[in-house]
């Protein structure tokens, strides 16, 4: 490969390169700048993420494989990258004030968020299983450290240790599965695997079966699908709240993108034999997630279970598997990202006032103490519950109708029942927000002060939550064209 050729191919990795370079720049700035200036590192991180998003939109997406058929820059990767970077941007904006207050580890925090985003975008672009694995590891290792960054907090320590141990197992499963896939097909490149498997006459091979099962288990762990979800509530609860949001949206988007690409581009011949397993995964995941969320007292833990349930809804779209199913999946990912980061964002704001700030009673009277934050939380919760005209409603509508179209009526009936159940625990928080707390009866509580970053993140997430719900045409069209890029 000549230097000119290599430089040309780098244009397809522009988002990854910008994210990585910004991360390295932050590390160096952190090492060389005096303590008083570290507050500005957050601005650098936000600017770098915005620049990567801008560059992704500016560069053409021809969809030809780059760097020895390792990665590709197509419209599908563009859509997922946009969702990931949007999530990262919101998380960074929400982190600014907390980081400024804590001080220690500021440079590492921002650098790791950017490195994790690098891994996520690589997963969205990967068309080779080694590249998927590398992306997965880059994002996982960064997130392990981010979870445990508050070193003196017991909960964060416990969460980080659980995550790193179980995450290590999951990576092991994934890698072990890859060895079987390689043995069965003779390659780890998605196109080569698909052409070897052809239309399905070579599918009945025990190595292929075992490999697919192990790879699916690895993905399922990272997506927190039941029964691979046991780590999720503890890790989500123990991590710093912005990082919980990041894990719930960014990691899920990246892993789902890789999962869909795996099934559509590498193993389409295998898919018919796995539909039942995916069906069960989707059904069990949403049911267990919702039932467990019902009984939680901590809103943070409730949102952790709710994100498990949402992974179940996303899997319904994967089960459908049709182009309209994947289109629905992409739109749902966007909706899920903005509403979920929004909900966690409100929690970040609430936690500034009170230690903990995670229980239901901490949310009492929020709507009176700060009308903007209260209204935003109500909006995000309505959206998570799937009430029109929000993004969450539209996402569910698209996913469910695609699944019915593909003939999975019973799965959709189950999903609709689940959504009704879920409305109970979301609306419980909304009611708490607009109920006068006992403390407020005694005397007026202080109003909540929003920092610029928090205000920007909540407004952006709120506008998108309404925007995707009210004017879905543009987003849907973008997702539809993204799916055309897949094989």
């Amino acid at each position, binding site marked *: 490969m000549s*230097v000119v050729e290599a430089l040309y191919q780098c244009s397809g990795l522009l988002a990854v390169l910008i994210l990585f370079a910004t991360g390295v720049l932050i*590390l160096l700035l952190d090492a060389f700048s005096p303590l008083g200036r570290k507050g500005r590192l957050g601005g650098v991180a936000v600017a770098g993420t915005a620049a990567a998003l801008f560059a992704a939109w500016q560069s053409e997406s021809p969809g030809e494989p780059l760097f020895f058929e390792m990665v590709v820059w197509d419209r599908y990767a563009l859509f997922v990258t946009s969702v990931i970077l949007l999530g990262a941007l919101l998380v960074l904006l929400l982190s600014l004030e907390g980081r400024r207050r804590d001080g220690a580890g500021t440079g590492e925090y921002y650098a790791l968020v950017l490195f994790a985003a690098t891994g996520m975008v690589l997963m969205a672009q990967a068309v080779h299983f080694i590249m998927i694995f590398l992306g997965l590891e880059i994002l996982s290792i960064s997130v392990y450290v981010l979870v445990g960054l508050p070193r003196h907090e017991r909960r964060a320590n416990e969460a980080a240790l659980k995550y790193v141990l179980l995450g290590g197992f999951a990576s092991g499963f994934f890698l072990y599965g890859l060895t079987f896939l390689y043995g069965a097909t003779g390659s780890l490149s998605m196109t080569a695997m698909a052409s070897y498997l052809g239309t399905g006459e070579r599918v009945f091979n025990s190595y292929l079966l075992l490999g697919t099962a192990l790879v699916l288990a690895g993905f399922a762990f990272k997506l927190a699908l039941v029964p691979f979800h046991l780590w999720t509530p503890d890790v989500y609860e123990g991590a710093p709240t912005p990082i919980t949001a990041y894990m719930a949206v960014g990691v899920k988007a990246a892993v789902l993108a890789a999962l869909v690409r795996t099934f559509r581009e590498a193993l389409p011949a295998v898919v018919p034999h796995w539909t039942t397993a995916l069906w069960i995964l989707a059904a069990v995941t949403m049911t267990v997630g919702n039932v467990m969320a019902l009984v939680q007292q901590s809103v943070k833990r409730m949102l952790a279970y709710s994100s498990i349930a949402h992974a179940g809804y996303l899997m319904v779209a994967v089960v459908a598997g049709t182009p309209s199913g994947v289109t629905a999946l992409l739109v749902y990912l966007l909706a899920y990202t903005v509403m979920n980061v929004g909900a966690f964002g409100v929690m970040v704001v609430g936690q500034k006032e009170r230690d903990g700030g995670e229980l239901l009673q901490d949310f009492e009277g929020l709507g009176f103490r700060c009308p903007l934050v209260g209204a935003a939380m109500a909006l995000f919760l309505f959206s998570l519950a799937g009430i029109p005209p929000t993004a969450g409603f539209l996402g569910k509508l698209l996913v469910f109708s695609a699944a019915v179209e593909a003939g999975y009526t019973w799965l959709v009936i189950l999903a609709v029942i689940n959504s009704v159940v879920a409305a109970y625990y979301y609306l419980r928080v909304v009611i708490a927000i607009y109920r006068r707390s006992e403390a407020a009866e005694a005397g007026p509580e202080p109003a909540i002060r929003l920092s610029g970053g928090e205000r920007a993140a909540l407004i952006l997430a709120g506008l998108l939550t309404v925007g995707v719900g009210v004017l879905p045409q543009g987003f849907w069209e973008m997702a539809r064209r993204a799916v055309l890029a897949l094989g």
Partner: protein
Amino acid sequence: MTAVYIPALIYLAVTMGVMAVILFLSARIGRRRVTREKMLPYECGMDPLGTLEIHFPIKFYVVAMIFIIFDIETVFLYPWAVVFRDLGWFGFVEMLLFTAVILIGLVYLFRKGALEWE
């Protein structure tokens, strides 16, 4: 066909032989002096039993981690050196980039004081 394995068999026989001779000689002429340290599971002086509340510098971990990073770098450099000619300029630039990233890591470690023992 089997003739190919004869050198390997000879090598195996010689190794076993040398090992047997050394073990025999040391058992025969060496003096046995049994001390407590010698009978411990780890002969490095680490006490295998004791309370949990022992203090030892966390710097050991930092040094071990740094060692692993640069060790892995070497692991990648060796195979690259073997196929250096085949990879040409592309491989050279790739390796320069890789080494540059590691170097930035070293600068970061240095500035953060990870290499200072005191």
